């Protein structure tokens, strides 16, 4: 088995909630990420899925040290990087790159595409000497399927999907070891998406890259991931291999998520049972006691309000159903997965 390149231990990120304009009084905290642990192995792709607002982007930003962790550790090759700053942080960042969710605001509107993609070379000149940069940028444009002639254009002159590819090209520039990709293909049409995914897989094979791949599209996550983690309200609720999660999900939230996948073939949609979740998503500032999913769970019992279920292999389960699941009553249920 491959060794872990990132080890995330009990990571917490709370955003303070304040009241009043002048005297900002803290009245609580948005518990965006609340005690998450997992490993990212060398050369693997870990998919992360979960409801909007459950903390996926925050998790990514904390891993990248773009947001400071409230507590917990992020070990990169055994060293805690969550408290680094300055030069030490810069050195680590070369090896861990991020592709952002929002292709609009993450690209500086006043820089040309050539400057945007070449920017990492300014910070890390050792990767591409000055004379080679234009070439290097054009190669990257070509790699992500953009016309190298567009090098002098500005971001607003591109469509959404084209901008997304600019972000990917920039993420690849330094040949990092780890890429944290936050919805890297969600703005792309399925054919361009297929090209980008094929490209990511090819680069992974070539350079033994590790990916953390955050996405809403469960089919694409399954396609690209070796393992998948499911988040709900700041917690990891289930994690396992793609087969374990998609074919043998044991957490009710995962089951609901899989059953909600829209199926492209209108004919195949008939006869599917959708688990419609009751109730609203609770506020991350005031999450339910015990299991955070209990307010919407059809299986919830007394115990769920009292005890926080730990992310561990439930003792009663065996075979492919025996993988980490944070539910007191974890069991398999037949759901038509993302077909």
């Amino acid at each position, binding site marked *: 088995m491959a060794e872990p390149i990132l080890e995330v231990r009990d990571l917490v990120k709370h*955003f303070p*909630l304040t009241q009043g304009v002048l005297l900002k009084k803290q009245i609580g905290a*948005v518990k965006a990420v609340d005690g998450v642990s997992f490993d990212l192995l060398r050369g693997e792709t870990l998919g992360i899925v979960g*409801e*909007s*607002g459950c903390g996926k*982007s925050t998790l990514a930003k904390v891993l990248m040290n773009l947001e400071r962790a409230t507590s917990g550790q992020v070990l990169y090759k055994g060293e805690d990087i969550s408290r680094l700053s300055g030069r030490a942080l810069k050195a680590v960042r070369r090896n861990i790159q991020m592709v952002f*969710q*929002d292709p*609009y*605001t993450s690209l500086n509107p006043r820089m040309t595409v050539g400057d945007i993609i070449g920017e990492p070379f300014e910070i890390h000149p050792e990767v591409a000497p000055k004379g080679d940069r234009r070439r290097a940028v054009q190669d990257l444009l070509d790699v992500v*399927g953009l*016309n190298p*002639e567009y090098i*002098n*254009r500005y971001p*607003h*002159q*591109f*469509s*959404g*999907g084209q901008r997304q590819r600019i972000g990917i090209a920039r993420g690849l520039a330094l040949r990092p070891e780890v890429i944290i990709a936050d*919805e890297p293909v*969600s*703005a*792309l*049409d*399925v*054919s*361009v*998406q*297929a*090209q980008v*995914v*094929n490209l990511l897989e090819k680069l992974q094979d070539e350079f033994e890259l590790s990916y953390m791949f955050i996405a*809403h599209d469960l*089919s*694409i996550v*399954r*396609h690209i991931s070796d393992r998948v983690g499911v988040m709900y309200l700041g917690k990891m609720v289930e994690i396992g291999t*793609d087969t374990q999660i*998609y074919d043998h999900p044991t957490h009710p939230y995962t089951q*609901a*998520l899989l059953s*909600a996948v*829209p*199926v*492209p*073939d*209108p*004919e195949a*949609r008939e006869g599917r049972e959708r688990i419609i*979740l009751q109730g*609203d*998503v*609770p*506020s991350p*500032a*005031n999450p339910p006691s015990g299991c955070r999913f209990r307010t919407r769970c059809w299986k919830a019992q007394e115990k769920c309000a009292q005890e926080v279920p730990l992310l561990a292999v439930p003792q009663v389960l065996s075979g492919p159903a025996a993988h980490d699941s944070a539910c007191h009553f974890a069991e398999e249920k037949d759901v038509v997965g993302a*077909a």
Partner: protein
Amino acid sequence: MTTTTEKSVNPQAGKAGTPLLEVRDLHVEFRTRDGVAKAVNGVNYSVSAGETLAVLGESGSGKSVTAQAIMGILDSPPGFVTQGQINFQGRDLLKLSEKERRRIRGAKMAMIFQDALSSLNPVLTVGYQLGEMFRVHQGMSRKDAKAKAIELMDRVRIPAARERVNDYPHQFSGGMRQRIMIAMALALEPDLIIADEPTTALDVTVQAQVMDLLAELQREYHMGLILITHDLGVVADVADKIAVMYAGRIVETAPVHELYKQPAHPYTRGLLDSIPRLDQKGQELYAIKGLPPNLLRIPSGCAFNPRCPMAQDVCRTDIPVLHPVTDSRGSACHFWKETLDG
């Protein structure tokens, strides 16, 4: 390059009286330093009250630019509408003054943007921006407008709306910002909504809720909806008909079920084949080969010809018109019959 005069076959138009919106032979170009980029090259589509038209197509094919032209918010210069009509409730919008168009925007037609964060003002609270709609258009008091804002946030399922109404856009997750944009578009109950990838940032459960919400409001207010999306699953769930775009043209139009079952254009076929299937895990995904066309130099004949597995000589010289495939569908391919059978 031979140009064929294009008969505008619009199989969907005029089925149930006059459509709410009808785009006719729309052309948009961007005059840039490097040359003229022809982003929209003769788009025809229509949508009736209560109907949902889904617009699919390649990234960069002009879906958003067409929508911007309809809304009257094209980035101009460098963008110019050079030809065509946009008939909305009996009037050609392209003939109206900017002032008249501004009155229509927001109240009669609204757009949900692809880029949720950059269309919200970062220095104003979300509640203020939602409330502004009511203060400006309906002269509501600050207090009533705020109550309305909270109600709207609830409607699009922002948890703890009351506590979060004074938060700034960056404090919300991507999906929540998207829902706030949706709330803003729905605020004044317009007749037409253009939703440009409204659910790309949303997970499937919230996506289902948001689409249900849109559908519910659409029924309630009998709105027309143009849904621009890459998500073929969402399309199958909500759309009545589909228009597929490539290089600034509609290359295929059809009722939803028929298009999925039997595409009549090679581009549509390639698109459907690119959907990841679970039984192909570990294999490379199918992708249409080649690069999207350079809009400064669109290939002669059919713009798809350099990437098309069906292409023959005629494809490199003659622009295919939108051939009627049945009463209710059309394909702009010289070999639509072969494609349909293939």
